[in-house]
């Protein structure tokens, strides 16, 4: 008598365990019950979230902090549609996720059954790839493919829509060999391309390395450092490339772009060669495409061929994995004669430092800078999106590409808290701080309950200015100070709110208290929230108005009313 075969759901969990999945973030519903049932008693931890967006962001934060694939599990219909923002966030930032959505039985698809939605159709533009599973015997192969696709090449989210009759059906043993004839992963570059890059780099007098998220994903920190030091080339990093070369390194000029450092942006203007390592020339850093580095030779290393010449036309495009390509390139490099250039960047750093007003009300920048000092640059920092995110990017100097977790491409408010929870689970024992705005925090604060249940010591720093501050800044600078829809009147008392969730709350409202209160919160053994009541009308500088050239960067408040920006947001 044969043993009864396992269900599709059990097979799915088996493969997750084989793939090394530690945590599944999710929220059940009718269509997902067989999937949740298969988790009972298995060696995989289920984190019950309060909203499906939170589940996907947690999986995302876990993935960013560890480099492993994050997994979320939700139900059909609204459960699945609630994942869309999380999928989009992960796709834009190339984060490996496997998201499984329960689905109504296959025979009801398209018949408007209860909680039946065209999840594949809704999510096509937000995933690297997706599956609608029709046959239980396909589950092992699809699961193998999903984990491989999510984590290889340019990573991204993979969605598996799993009808209830399929997850509940008995599986007949079948091979799980992947069938992906249309998918290949570039690794090494061609020798001729590498030789050409070496020649161009050797000829440059003022070379600049632009380090993006691709370099972090590829784990190319050692190679980037060797490249910068051998060439004696200054480095600028994108928002998501922070820390690949430690931002305390003398050659690192920090973040470039709209709210980047003045010295990074001045280097962009004056360089005669720029080499992007896994950055996609996003509009936040390039700003005005036809005036970006017009006189510089441009080299672009990217694992995604579709990024080469997408928005910035380059002199040399190299398709390959950043770490592999840099390893090919390093032996061919000669030490450049860049002493004058490096000296120039150091003068800029001295003459145009990041600064903020210290008098008057409490400044967000002071709180963030103090947090950086207290954590010695060792904390994993997650953020929401807006002013606090830019100030954190400026004043938190990252030491590792996996210590800075922020929604870059999508700009998703509400990302900070759930991603911090995921990051802390992935890296227990480390300090994790979510720096959030009062606006974004309220989009996913229901995950405070998840945090409380987990008893993990995530710290939440709310930069509370009672405004949707970045929009207010734009209305202040470019829309004649006409505020519309930015006043967050009716904010709760965040300290009491934290208390209601069983989380210790702290408040800072005076600059004299910053260090003491932050220290107390960081020393608190469990989760804690710090409500920092900051100056309401502060603006983030430097600023390159969207669509303006780097030379038109504002170092501080302008004396005149500015034209409305021509670029996007």
């Amino acid at each position, binding site marked *: 008598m044969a043993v009864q075969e396992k269900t599709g759901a059990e097979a799915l969990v088996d493969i997750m365990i084989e793939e090394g999945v530690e945590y599944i973030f999710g929220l059940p519903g009718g269509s997902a019950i067989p999937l949740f049932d298969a988790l009972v008693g298995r060696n995989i931890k289920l984190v019950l979230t309060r909203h499906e967006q939170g589940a996907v962001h947690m999986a995302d934060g876990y993935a960013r902090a560890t480099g492993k694939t994050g997994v979320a599990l939700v139900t059909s219909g609204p459960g699945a549609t609630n994942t869309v923002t999380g999928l989009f966030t992960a796709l834009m930032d190339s984060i490996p996720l496997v998201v499984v959505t329960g689905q109504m039985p296959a025979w009801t698809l398209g018949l408007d059954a209860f909680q039946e939605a065209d999840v594949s*159709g809704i999510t*096509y533009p937000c995933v690297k790839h997706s599956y*609608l599973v029709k046959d239980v015997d396909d589950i092992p192969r699809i699961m193998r493919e999903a984990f491989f696709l999510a984590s290889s090449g340019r990573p991204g989210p993979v969605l598996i829509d799993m009808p209830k009759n399929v997850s509940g059906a008995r599986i007949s043993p079948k091979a799980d060999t992947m069938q992906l*004839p*249309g*998918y290949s992963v570039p690794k090494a570059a061609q020798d001729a391309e590498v030789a050409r890059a070496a020649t161009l780099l050797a000829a440059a007098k003022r070379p600049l390395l632009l380090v993006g998220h691709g370099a972090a994903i590829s784990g190319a920190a050692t190679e980037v450092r060797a490249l910068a030091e051998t060439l004696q080339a200054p480095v600028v990093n994108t928002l998501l490339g922070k820390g690949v070369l430690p931002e305390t390194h003398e050659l690192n000029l920090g973040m470039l772009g709209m709210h980047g450092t003045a010295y990074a942006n001045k280097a962009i203007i004056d360089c005669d060669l720029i080499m992007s390592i896994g950055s996609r020339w996003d509009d936040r850093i390039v700003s005005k495409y036809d005036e970006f580095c017009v006189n510089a030779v441009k080299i672009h290393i990217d694992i*995604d*061929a*579709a990024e080469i010449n*997408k928005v910035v036309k380059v002199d040399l495009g190299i398709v390959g994995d950043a770490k592999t390509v840099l390893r090919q390139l390093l032996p061919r490099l000669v030490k450049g004669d860049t002493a004058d250039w490096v000296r120039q960047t150091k003068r800029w750093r001295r003459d145009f430092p990041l600064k903020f007003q210290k008098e008057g009300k409490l400044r967000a920048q002071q709180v963030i800078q103090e947090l950086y000092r207290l954590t010695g640059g060792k904390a994993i920092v997650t953020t929401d999106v807006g002013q606090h995110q830019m100030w954190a990017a400026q004043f938190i100097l990252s030491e590792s590409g996996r210590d800075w977790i922020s929604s870059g491409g999508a700009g998703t408010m509400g990302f900070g808290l759930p991603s911090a929870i995921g990051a802390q689970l992935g890296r227990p024992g480390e300090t994790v701080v979510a720096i959030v705005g009062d606006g974004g925090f309220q989009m996913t604060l229901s995950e405070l309950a998840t945090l409380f249940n987990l008893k993990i010591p995530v710290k939440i720093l709310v930069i509370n200015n009672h405004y949707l501050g970045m929009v207010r800044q734009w209305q202040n600078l470019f829309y004649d100070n006409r505020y519309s829809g930015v006043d967050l009147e009716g904010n709760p008392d965040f300290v009491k709110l934290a208390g209601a969730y069983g989380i210790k709350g702290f408040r800072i409202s005076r600059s004299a208290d910053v260090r003491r209160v932050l220290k107390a919160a960081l020393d608190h053994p469990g989760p804690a929230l710090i409500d920092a009541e900051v100056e309401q009308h502060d603006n983030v500088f430097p600023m390159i108005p969207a669509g303006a050239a780097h030379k038109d960067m504002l170092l501080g408040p302008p004396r005149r009313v500015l034209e409305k920006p021509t670029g996007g947001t």
Partner: protein
Amino acid sequence: MPAEITGGNGAARHSISLYVANKPGVLIRIALVFSRRGYNIDSLVVSETEDPGFSRMNIVATGDRATLEQIIKQLNKLVDVIHARDYSYEDVIQKELALFKIDCAPERRAEALQVMEAFKAKTIDLSERTLAVEVTGSSEKLDALETMLRSFHIREMVRTGKVLMARGEAAT
């Protein structure tokens, strides 16, 4: 064969051939790459191939060359696309089939047949007042016949869209 220039800003008609996995959802993933860039698809042919696991798609779309190159790269990125290639600038076998139903009273039949003769088109249906025509050939030839038939008043026209195949030993 050079791409047909149809606009002032470098917009040209491009013929793209894709070899794709024969799975549900492939068509929509491909269509989304075009629609996201605001590109209209002029014609689209999906058919079986010699291997039941795969389908071939022929797409004709109008746009500037740089954007089309980007679109081809994005198509190649799709997991279910084995390969996508722009054949607009290459000499390949290209065919299309069209059916026209025209007004044709008995006194103009001879004239109509003369036009059709010149285009090697066939009569496939005839009624007291109408004539149905089948023609095969390059898309340009079909365009030319369409122009000629306009003088009869075209009641209906349907075209299959262009299909193409590489010449000689080369694989499409």
